[in-house]
């Protein structure tokens, strides 16, 4: 196997899945936020909830489209670049992927049309139901994918016959040990991402003069949601870490930058891990804290990376620096989210003036944090996915065993093409979100998608 093909295929998959996950991270939670807006409107009849709904449903549609098209790429890449994966564990991954596609994808895609364009064409309750089914479908989609991903980290409920995995216990496969933690962690990450996006874009609209009631409720909902959820997320993240320590100790050792097994292990705040010398340089650490966090005992024993070197020198732990740093970016962003959301919530509550009570620097701060959820989510996924290496399915097959023998230059050319497209689309996506915000702030209608000029309007009306 060509080492360059492996590396390029990995980079290509990483690029695709990183680009893809940005959009489900938004749609998983935004669907429920829209349902919340819709239910508040049904309950109170207050137009401001519909105003918020109408703006954010457009961002939802845009994100959904980005998610669909980048997701299609994924399902093909299993075959084009990683045929070994399905050949080995297809009996398990297959049904899980099938359920993801069937229960979720269709539910979303079919009802999306009604949710987006059907408000005046169907009874109100059907529209609300469509909104619910889209939100539910997106969540189920996330569930099945997380089940499969978690199974790759903590596989169980199967037996290997002639190098191929056969399922023996489906409930063990679905409820594998890391699934509940990873699922809750990801769903919360999605809600936080959406909260900060809504808060940031609403703050932006507020700053440029779009001070409507719809912006007011959206901003308040988002800030309070973020302030409530971030402590829960930190708690769940800690539980997830303990679960990882039990099943993937090599990953935790890389996250902590801990080379030697020992007791009273310090928590490394900063270091440059050196893979050659197998030690940290420029280390800044707090004594005994890592032991306490991971074992709840100041002198607890923590496994180090050196345990994962085979007798023949084969390294069975991930590269340390990427895992170590991704983890720190995630935690750092999380702490910043805590600080910003609590300050904003405090300011809104304290002065009893609601959103008017937010000073300008606070609003700028929220705008700056608009995409903080993306940063934290990506960093978290890098931590867990790079942390699983060299395994593709922990203890069952390595990444190297699954890769297709496609010539490296071919992979390189498609990789460059994908990267160019993704970069352009990401720029366009962010640009359009803020463009729509400016447009609504000017009081212009953004309700029509493809309004033909009056002269060209069709004479025949839809049969109704």
């Amino acid at each position, binding site marked *: 196997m060509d080492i360059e093909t492996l590396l390029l295929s990995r980079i290509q998959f990483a690029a695709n899945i990183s680009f893809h996950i940005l959009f489900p991270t938004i749609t998983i939670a935004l669907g429920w936020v829209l349902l919340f807006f819709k239910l508040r409107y049904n309950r109170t009849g207050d137009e401001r909830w519909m105003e918020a709904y109408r703006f954010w*449903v457009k961002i939802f549609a*845009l994100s959904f*489209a*980005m998610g*669909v*098209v*980048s997701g*299609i790429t994924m*399902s*093909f890449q299993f*075959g*084009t670049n990683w*045929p*070994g994966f*399905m*050949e080995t564990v*297809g*009996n398990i991954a*297959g*049904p899980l*992927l*099938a*359920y993801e*596609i*069937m*229960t979720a*994808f*269709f*539910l979303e*895609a*079919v009802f999306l*049309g*009604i949710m987006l*364009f059907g*408000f005046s064409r*169907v009874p109100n309750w059907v529209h609300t139901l469509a909104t619910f089914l889209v939100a539910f479908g997106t969540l189920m989609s996330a569930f099945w994918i997380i089940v499969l991903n978690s199974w790759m980290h903590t596989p169980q409920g199967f037996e290997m016959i002639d190098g191929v995995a*056969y*399922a023996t216990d*489906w409930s063990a496969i679905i409820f594998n040990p890391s699934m509940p933690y990873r699922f809750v962690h990801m769903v919360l990450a999605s809600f936080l991402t959406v909260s900060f996006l809504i808060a940031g874009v609403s703050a932006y609209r507020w700053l440029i003069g779009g001070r409507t009631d719809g912006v007011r409720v959206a901003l308040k909902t988002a800030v309070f949601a973020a302030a409530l959820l971030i402590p829960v997320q930190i708690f769940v993240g800690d539980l997830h870490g303990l679960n990882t320590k039990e099943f993937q100790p090599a990953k935790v050792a890389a996250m902590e930058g801990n080379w030697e097994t020992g007791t009273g292990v310090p928590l490394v705040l900063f270091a440059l891990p050196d893979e050659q010398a197998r030690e940290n340089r420029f280390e800044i650490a707090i004594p005994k804290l890592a032991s306490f966090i991971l074992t709840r005992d100041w002198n607890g024993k923590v496994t180090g990376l050196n345990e994962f070197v085979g007798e023949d020198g084969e390294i069975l732990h991930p590269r340390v620096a990427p895992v170590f740093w991704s983890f720190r970016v995630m935690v750092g962003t999380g702490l910043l989210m805590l600080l910003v959301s609590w300050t904003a919530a405090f300011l809104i509550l304290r002065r009893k003036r609601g959103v008017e009570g937010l000073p300008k620097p606070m609003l700028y701060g929220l705008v700056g944090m608009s995409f903080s959820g993306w940063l934290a989510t990506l960093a978290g996924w890098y931590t867990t996915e790079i942390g699983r290496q060299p395994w593709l399915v922990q203890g069952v097959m390595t990444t190297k065993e699954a890769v297709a023998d*496609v010539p490296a230059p*071919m992979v390189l050319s*498609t990789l460059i*093409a*994908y990267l160019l*497209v993704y970069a352009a689309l990401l720029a*366009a996506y962010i640009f359009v979100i803020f463009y729509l915000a400016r447009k609504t702030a000017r009081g212009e209608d953004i*309700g*029509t*998608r*493809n*309004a*033909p*000029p009056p002269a*060209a309007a*069709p*004479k*025949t*009306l*839809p*049969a109704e």
Partner: protein
Amino acid sequence: MYYFGDPAIWLPFVFAGLMGVSILIYVVLDGFDLGVGVLFPFATDAEKDRMIASIGPFWDANETWLVLAVGLLLVAFPAAHGVILTALYLPVAIMLIGLILRGVAFEFRAKAPAPHKRLWNNAFFAGSLMTSLSQGFMLGMYVMGLEWTWINVAFAMLTAVFLTVGYSFIGATWVIHKTSDALQIKAVEWAKGGIWGLILGIGAVSLATPLVSTRIFDKWFSWPEALFLTPLPILSALLVFWLWSMLRAMPFAGDRRSWQPFAAATALWVMAFGGMAYSFYPYVVPEKITIYEAASAPESLFIILIGTSIVLPTILGYTVLSYVIFRGKATELRYD
């Protein structure tokens, strides 16, 4: 699990059938919205908006049939999935980038500032064209047995063009159904121009398949099978004739029969597809791997089947529902 005989026999067969149906539904449904994209350069700006409105509520769901088809290939025939997609690495990548471009252009062209709209219109056209061409190319390569030889690539390039024109034909019949007045008349002209692509495409594939493989040749031209098969080409010819005479007379007063060209095109598609499925069965990788050799373990297939038999009818129901809700002529799409 042994109710219907050996599950290692009937399960792969059922899944091949499901996959075939998904591909068929995909080429009809996404075929028409890809075709609408291919026709974009021939339309004025206002017409473009109405063409987009005619496919707006559907394209998302249409595209998921591709995901289902590839998904079924992936989960039910994992060994074939790897072989086929590795052999088609480049066209698959081009198709994916095309799908990405057109999918997002849909949203962006409606939301971006007016000066950017032309850019996104072009992206929508380019994406639709890339997708159609690469799908036609893959069809050609598949028919010729997935080997990268000069003759096969040349043939695949021909089918790429034919399928693209074929898509534009079914797209035009969709526009005939969903619009009125000047645009409808224009769409009739497009359909008249595009029908040749469809005929040449079906003809080329029908001629090439039996020539490439003696097995397929024997399946078609041996007695008594040939007797049962003759209705297929005859019906197809009748359909083409009917389509042509209808298109020459369209549009009819009071918008009568505007749905018929699309229905006839769909029927034609179904027959061409049925013929291909008959030719290639039982192979999923032409002449190399049968569906029985490529299938997952029966236990896994059975689990997928339970879900499929609940979900697929429901999905079909939803699909029909959404086509009913958004029936009639395309008006502007509004988020309310």
